[in-house]
């Protein structure tokens, strides 16, 4: 049915159906975010020898995040007098919208993908770059010194780590010869997962992705012991929730993207395991990547700003560049033999 829809000429009816599909998916993502936050708190709790949320919704605290969201919803709305009002209001929207746009192109199984773009990877990287404008707008509009410092740091970090991120993705594009995420997964069916072929790219990509997500050890933009809360110091209630939501939707998107690029998406690790449906494999790999993100948060101390910036330009960028040419050479050698 969806295939027929895709082949029909685009119109208002198509848009309506797509809109409903996207709306359903939005609720799935909101559900994911709710439980990703709970899972993060639980995992962090266990790693630090605590119990974590355990009061609301039974022993596992299953309703904790729902209660938090309700609290944010009825919270008093504060916009400082000195703030730039229109910019202050628009900034969370600009920060959130791209985070939801990027998940449109991610293939979850061979059937379930919303927009099969032939520039998939580039689309993801380009759209995700827009969020930094929202961050900077929030920082500037707040007219708060901590906010401005945090926003500047966030911007410098985002633009610095974007380059290794984009360049490490190039190795995969070289091997596949396509930016379409479906093609990338399909190519891994024949050659094996790309983490085996592109271990250097994976390490660079993973580190840069952590920095792009502002996750510990790269959460300098909101380093709470020096900058209060960074760029969203002045934000409260649901405006603040939008920034948090954007962060977790990006985590969802980035973990999915890493699953697709390096762990073969919905493909089973071995042929004889292919009776298990692809969605299960995708979910498992996705869960492992997300868990590693939580794990890092519990184990690594925060970096210093100077280390952070120098690491991007002096280590990651040359390594990513070298990886591109190494991959090209590897490809040539494979062609000869």
């Amino acid at each position, binding site marked *: 049915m969806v295939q027929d829809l*895709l*082949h029909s*000429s*685009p119109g208002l009816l*198509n*848009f309506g159906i*797509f*809109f409903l*599909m*996207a*709306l359903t998916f*939005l609720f799935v993502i909101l559900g994911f975010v709710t439980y990703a936050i709970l899972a993060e708190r639980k995992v962090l709790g266990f790693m630090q020898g605590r119990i974590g949320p355990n009061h609301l919704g039974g022993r596992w605290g299953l309703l904790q995040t729902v209660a938090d969201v309700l609290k944010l*919803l*009825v*919270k*008093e709305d*504060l*916009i*400082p*007098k*000195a703030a730039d009002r229109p910019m202050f209001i628009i900034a969370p929207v600009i920060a959130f919208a*791209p*985070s*939801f*746009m990027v998940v449109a192109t991610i293939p979850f199984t061979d059937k379930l993908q*919303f*927009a099969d*773009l032939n520039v998939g990877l580039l689309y993801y990287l380009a759209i995700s770059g827009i969020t930094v404008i929202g961050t900077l707008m929030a920082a*500037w509009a*707040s*007219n*708060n*010194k*901590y906010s*401005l410092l945090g926003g*500047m740091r966030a911007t410098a970090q985002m*633009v*610095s780590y974007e380059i290794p991120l*984009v*360049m490490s993705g*190039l190795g995969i*594009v*070289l091997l596949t*010869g396509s*930016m379409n995420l479906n093609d990338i997964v399909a190519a891994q069916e024949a050659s094996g997962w790309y983490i085996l072929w592109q271990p250097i790219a994976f390490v660079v990509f993973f580190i840069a992705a952590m920095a792009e997500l502002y996750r510990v050890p790269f959460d300098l933009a909101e380093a709470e012991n020096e900058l209060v809360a960074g760029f969203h*110091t002045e934000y409260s*209630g*649901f405006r603040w*929730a*939008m920034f948090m939501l954007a962060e977790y939707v990006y985590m969802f998107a980035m973990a999915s993207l890493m699953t697709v690029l390096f762990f073969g998406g919905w493909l089973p690790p071995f042929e004889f395991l292919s009776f298990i449906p692809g969605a299960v494999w995708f979910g498992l790999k996705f869960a492992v990547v997300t868990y590693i993100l939580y794990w890092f948060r519990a184990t690594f101390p925060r970096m210093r*700003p*100077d280390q952070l*910036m120098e690491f991007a*330009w*002096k280590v990651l960028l*040359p390594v990513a*560049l070298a990886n*591109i*040419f190494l991959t090209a050479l590897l490809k*040539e050698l494979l062609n000869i033999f």
Partner: protein
Amino acid sequence: MELLNVYQNNYLMVFAFLCLGVLLPVVALFMAKLLRPKFKSDAAKYTTYESGIEPFHDARVQFNVRYYVFALMFVIFDVETVFLYPWAIAYEKLGIFALIEMLIFVVMLLIGLIYAWKKKVLKWI
């Protein structure tokens, strides 16, 4: 024609995602407006936060020039990646000659990076 339809429908889907991405904050903030208590709290709450003291000066000062240099470097290398992506896709057809060409291009940019490195632009104080 068929392929054009598929292409357009895919981007229509992206547009639907964009609409929802904008609508969710708008609807959520509107709902928050309906739900939250309606009273004007005292003026002190609307001051800018500055660790409890009265905020002094404007926060929007001239910022460190280093951020600007990093932004410039970003532009240079981001444009480079824009060139590298089509090259990577067409690499299979172009072969070893294109590899050498691209190597020369990247080395020229690397010289820029090394220059910035030697000039201590990358060093954060």
